[in-house]
C-alpha cells in the first residue's frame, strides 16, 4: 500500500457522522474515499460553501473548489461570502481540518506555508484553518524526499499557527498531542518504535496502548 493511501485511510478513521470538515489541497482530498459506507460528512470549501462534492459531468459556472478547480455540490449545499466562510472556520464551526505539513514540532506547532528564499506562496486560508478548526490533523509523509525528518523538536520554518496540531498521521506512525505531550499512539504494520524514533527528530512518549494502524 502506498504511503498516501496509508495516511488517508488512517485519517478517515477520525471522522464521525455529521462532521463538518475542511480538507487541504493534495493528500487530504483522498481521505473521503476511505470513509465507511453510509457515513455522511459535509465538506467546507473556504472559497465560500458547504457541501463540496466531486465533479460529475460538465463543470458548472462558479462551482470551483478552493484550488480553483471545477467541482460538484451536494444536494443541500449552501453558498456564502468569504467573511461567512471564515467565520465558520475561525468560530469553531469546522469540526476537523486536515492539512499537509512541511514541519510539525513536539509543541504542536505547524509550518506549511513558506520556505524563506524558495517558496513564498502565501498562507491563503491555512492560518485561519489551523487557528480555528476544532481539531487539526496534519497528514504528511514522515520524511522529506531527501529523507530529512519533518517531525522536529522545534519547527525551523515560519509557523502557520502555534500549538494547534492535535494529531499527526504519517505512513509510519500516528502521534497525538494533548496537554503539550507528544505521544506515539500507533505505528504502521511492521514498523517498530525504534524505526519511528530513527526518522523523527522530536521527543515523544509511547502510549501504553500502542497498537498497529488499522488499515482494514
Amino acid at each position, binding site marked *: 500500500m502506498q504511503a498516501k493511501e496509508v495516511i488517508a485511510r488512517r485519517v478517515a478513521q477520525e471522522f464521525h457522522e455529521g462532521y463538518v470538515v475542511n480538507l487541504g489541497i493534495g493528500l487530504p482530498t483522498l481521505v473521503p474515499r476511505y470513509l465507511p459506507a453510509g457515513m455522511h460528512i459535509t465538506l467546507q*470549501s*473556504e*472559497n*465560500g*460553501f458547504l457541501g463540496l462534492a466531486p465533479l460529475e459531468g460538465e463543470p*458548472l*459556472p*462558479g*462551482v*470551483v473548489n*478552493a*484550488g*480553483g478547480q471545477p467541482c460538484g*455540490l451536494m444536494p443541500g449545499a449552501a*453558498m*456564502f*461570502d*468569504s*467573511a461567512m*466562510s*471564515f467565520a465558520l*472556520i*475561525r468560530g469553531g464551526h469546522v469540526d476537523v481540518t486536515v492539512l499537509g505539513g512541511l514541519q510539525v514540532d513536539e509543541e504542536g*506547532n505547524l509550518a506549511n506555508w513558506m520556505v524563506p528564499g524558495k*517558496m*513564498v*506562496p*502565501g*498562507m*491563503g*486560508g*491555512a*492560518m*485561519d484553518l489551523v*487557528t*480555528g478548526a476544532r481539531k487539526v490533523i496534519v497528514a504528511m509523509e514522515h520524511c522529506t524526499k531527501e529523507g530529512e525528518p519533518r517531525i522536529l523538536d522545534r519547527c525551523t520554518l*515560519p*509557523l*502557520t*499557527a*502555534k*500549538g494547534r496540531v492535535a494529531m499527526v498521521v504519517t505512513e509510519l506512525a500516528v502521534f497525538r498531542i494533548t496537554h503539550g505531550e507528544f505521544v506515539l499512539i500507533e505505528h504502521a504494520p511492521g514498523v517498530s518504535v525504534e524505526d519511528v524514533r530513527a526518522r523523527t527528530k522530536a521527543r515523544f512518549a509511547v502510549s501504553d496502548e500502542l497498537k498497529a494502524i488499522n488499515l482494514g
Partner: protein
Amino acid sequence: MALDKQVDWSDVGPLFRDGISVMFGGFMGVGTPDGLVSVLRERGTKNLTLIGNDTAAPETGVGPLISDGHVSKVVVSHIGTNPVTGKKMIAGELDVDLVPQGTLAERIRCGGAGLGGVLTPTGVGTVVEEGKAKMVVDGKTFLVELPLRADVAILKAKRADRAGNLVYERAARNFNPIMALAADLVIAEVDEIVEIGEIDPDHVMTPAALVDKIVLTRRL
C-alpha cells in the same frame, strides 16, 4: 423611481486613474470581472494597489495587470499560483503584503462597516503578528487587525436590476459582497440586467444602495 445605474463600456475607462487602490472580487479568477480588468489594462493605468484574495494566474483574473506592469502593490492572501507575482516581488518591482484570508475578509468588512478593526487569533505566534498590537480577552491573545478600504471596488455578479441590486453565482460570490461596502466607487460587471422589481428582495445579496455603476459583461 430609482436611478438607472447601467453605463456603457466607454463610460468606464475615465473612472480609473493612476495610483488608485482597487479591490477586486474573485478567488483564483472566479468572481473577478474580466471586462473591468481589461479596461484597467487598456487604459494603461499605472501604480495600482490591488486588494483581493489572490493574484490568480498570469492569464486569468487580475494576473494580466501584474504581468503587464500596471501594479505596484498587492494586498492578498495567496500568490503561489501566479509565478509572475513571485518573480516581480523578488525583483523588487512589486510590493506584496500577504494577509491570512480570513483576516483579509474581516479587514475589508471592517473598512466597510465603520469598524476600527477586529481582534483575531489568526497569526498569533507567527510572522503575521510582527508590528501589530495585541489584546488579551478572557485570557486569550488576539491580534488587532486594522480596516482596509479602496478607492474603487470592481465586482462580478450574475444578475443586477437597473438600480444595482446584485445576485452572485455560486462560489463566484467570495469577496464581492464585502468589497461592495469598502470602496468609494463600486462598479459591478454583470451577466444580466433586469428591470427593477424583478429580483425578489429576499434574493438580493448586495443592496443597490452600495453599487454606483453596473455594466453588462463584455464577452472577450
